């Protein structure tokens, strides 16, 4: 049993070690340019370039998705906890589980056929919509566990003072659970920035020009790694090592930051 666990640990560590060993030279070669430049041409001799357009596409689409998904999820989780003994609560939980079970490649196909075909092109908006469909069930689960751990006495006190449902949500539920809510938002943001399959057909393959308009195609860091990994040019494969390390660092920083919050003392 010890041998099996050592083999498993070795495999998991070696994967991360190789990522640092092969990605760090590319990062050191480029410096800060990796955050704002365009990727290298296939005819270059060295992988000097940057992730600029893809990083912008990632951040804008993930940010939009988080904005929309968090509003919907907070309201739905609050209603599901408030009306716990009515049928609406179990219906919402079932819907959230059903949405969570949709394969992400299918989400991409659906958004492509409903939005991209009618608009005539792929766009950041379609990518943000695909990420919203992926993010809502994750956030619903987190927020439901946070809101159900708030003691009933505080909410009853709020209602007895004459606050409406929206005010109780804003001042009491979010006030007590703000650490958990913030840490869940950061953790889910990190996870949806790393999603590849929902973006494959919806956001396009525009790696070399900056797109700030929501109706223009762009790309994400994950689609860039996916496209360059299977490329026949050595420069692009070397550059993909650097892009993987950048994505890894962003994900680790956000994940560790989401664990550093301090709970409110009740």
């Amino acid at each position, binding site marked *: 049993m*010890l041998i*099996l*666990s050592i*083999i*498993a*640990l070795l*495999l*998991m560590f070696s*994967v991360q070690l*190789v*990522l640092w060993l*092969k990605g760090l030279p590319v990062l050191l070669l480029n410096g800060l340019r990796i955050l704002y430049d365009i990727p290298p041409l296939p005819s270059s001799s060295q992988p000097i370039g940057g992730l600029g357009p893809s990083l912008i596409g990632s951040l804008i689409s993930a940010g939009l998705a988080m904005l929309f998904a968090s*509003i*919907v999820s907070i*309201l*739905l989780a609050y209603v599901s906890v408030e009306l716990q003994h009515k049928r*609406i609560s179990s219906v*919402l939980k079932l*819907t*959230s589980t*059903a*949405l969570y*079970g*949709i*394969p*992400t*490649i*299918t*989400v991409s*196909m*659906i958004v492509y*056929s*409903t939005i991209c075909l009618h608009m005539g092109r792929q766009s950041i908006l379609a990518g943000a919509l695909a990420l919203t*469909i992926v993010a809502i069930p994750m956030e619903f689960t987190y927020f439901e566990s946070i809101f159900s751990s708030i003691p009933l006495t505080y909410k009853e006190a709020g209602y007895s003072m004459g606050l409406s*449902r*929206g005010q109780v*949500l804003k001042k009491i539920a979010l006030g007590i659970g703000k650490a958990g809510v913030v840490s869940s938002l950061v953790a889910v943001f*990190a*996870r949806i*920035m*790393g*999603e*590849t*399959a929902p973006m*494959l*057909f919806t956001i396009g393959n525009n790696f070399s020009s900056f797109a700030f308009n929501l109706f223009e195609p762009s790309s994400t860091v*994950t689609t860039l*790694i*996916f496209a360059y*990994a299977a490329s026949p040019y050595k420069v692009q494969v070397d550059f*993909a*090592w650097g892009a*993987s390390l950048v*994505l*890894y660092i962003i*994900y*680790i920083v956000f*994940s*560790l930051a989401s*664990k550093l919050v301090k709970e409110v003392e009740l």
Partner: protein
Amino acid sequence: MIKRNLSVFDFFVLASILTIFVFLALTGYVLIYHSAEAIKISGISLFNVKWDQYRGIYGLAIPLLGSLVLTMVSLFFVAIFSIPLAILTNEYVRGRFRRVMETFADVSAGLPTVIYAFIGVAFLSNYLRKFVESPLHNFLGFIPLFSCTPFSGANLFTASIVLSIAMTPFTILLIREAYSMIPKIYIDAAYSLGLFKEEVIFLKLSMIKKAIISSLLFSASRVLTETTIVSLVAGGQFLVSSCLLSPVITIPALIVNNFGYSNIYYGIDEALYFSALILFLISMTLNILGFILYSRWKKSLVV
């Protein structure tokens, strides 16, 4: 009953509920509509073993079989990697090192799978082929499982190793959660009867048997729908063989490679929607089974 007027808050709540229902209904409608079109266009040839887009034959039997075989093999590797590691973390490691290992498992559980896919195709496939798969074929080639020559590292064996590395932290998380729910009374009683530590570990494992199986079912549903790792590492040839070292194709890899060409090949998109519907039904069944097992296990944990 006291009637109250609808407020702004109620309007937002109703809009959110409508949004989530619209998303679900849209998914169902698009999948079912296009699958019906696929059955109208291709008919029974959807279950053919040939995929020939030039003649309009979109046979999904081989990708479906590849999906199921890849899931079973990588589930085997996930089980033999995650259960010993979960026991190691929970029983034999203490203090700060244990917290480091737990944080490492938590953080790796959600790591973008495209990173694992890229490391698999650029690094692991070459070294696995040189040091593991070629010796397996040379020395154990008489067994049908290793009887084909691994020409490149992109085959079923490499894909299942990479998939198990990607899914092990998630499974360890679920097993660890089940471990922490065992009531302490049983453990104290076992130690007071004079059992050794290894025997107590076996006792604990037998108590969380159903929870382990349900975690493996959740991981199976994630492996089934995994796209990036399979399309880069698993080869992608329309082969079916009993050999672990041959390339394989699965439904998500098929969708990624062939989607969007409906103006050239008539009916290809509809066949891919049909395959996505089958994938959705199988993964939903695995999720529901895992959930039922988990709730039954939780109810049976009575002190």
